[in-house]
């Protein structure tokens, strides 16, 4: 499993987004966004359970390093490193020179992020074939 800027421990911006939705007549607060807030019981439950189920899974976590533009004068990291990492044994962690939006959208095959992800795929590929051979 490859995680790209996944808020395993929530995001401060979830609170902000829900506050904006709450005052918006058309939308209103969304429960699933509340679950992404920093102190979220739901996220904690998923994380606690997942650590018992992830044996045998190859885990990669990539985190963003560039702030996403949120307006003319504002920018921020949406999912900071400490939230994008699960801290599980065997989890491979790497940075991407991208913001939250562009971390999964590459301009060209020469994009460093694309190369990084391709390397991860190659490593996973080798591991899968190695496991496959050992099962024969």
């Amino acid at each position: 499993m490859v995680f790209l800027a996944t808020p395993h421990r929530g995001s401060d911006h979830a609170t902000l987004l829900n506050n904006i939705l709450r005052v918006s007549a058309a939308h209103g607060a969304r429960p699933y966004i509340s679950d992404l807030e920093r102190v979220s019981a739901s996220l904690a439950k998923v994380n606690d359970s997942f650590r018992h189920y992830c044996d045998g899974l190859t885990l990669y976590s990539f985190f963003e390093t560039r702030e996403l533009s949120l307006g003319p004068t504002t920018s921020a990291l949406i999912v900071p490193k400490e939230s994008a990492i699960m801290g599980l044994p065997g989890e491979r962690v790497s940075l991407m020179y991208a913001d939250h939006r562009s971390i999964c959208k590459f301009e060209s095959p020469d994009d460093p992020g694309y190369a990084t992800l391709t390397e991860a795929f190659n490593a996973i590929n080798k591991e899968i074939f190695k496991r496959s051979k050992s099962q024969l």
Partner: protein
Amino acid sequence: MLRYTSMLVSGILTFPGVQNPIVLVAHSMGGIVAKEASLLRLLLPPLCGHCNAGLTKIRRGAGLHYGTTRSFLP
């Protein structure tokens, strides 16, 4: 428990000819979906939450299967 299944799971990579070949690539909220799905032993995932490609299609070897035209592949 699966509260997030309608959320984006960005991509599923398959390796033809290999058993259990699926690598799930999830962006942002999709990662929470992926973890939650795995708790229910649904991984390999039954659906791509974004484009609704089912496991059957994926097993047939959809290759690099991605949810948006700008995701993953330039």
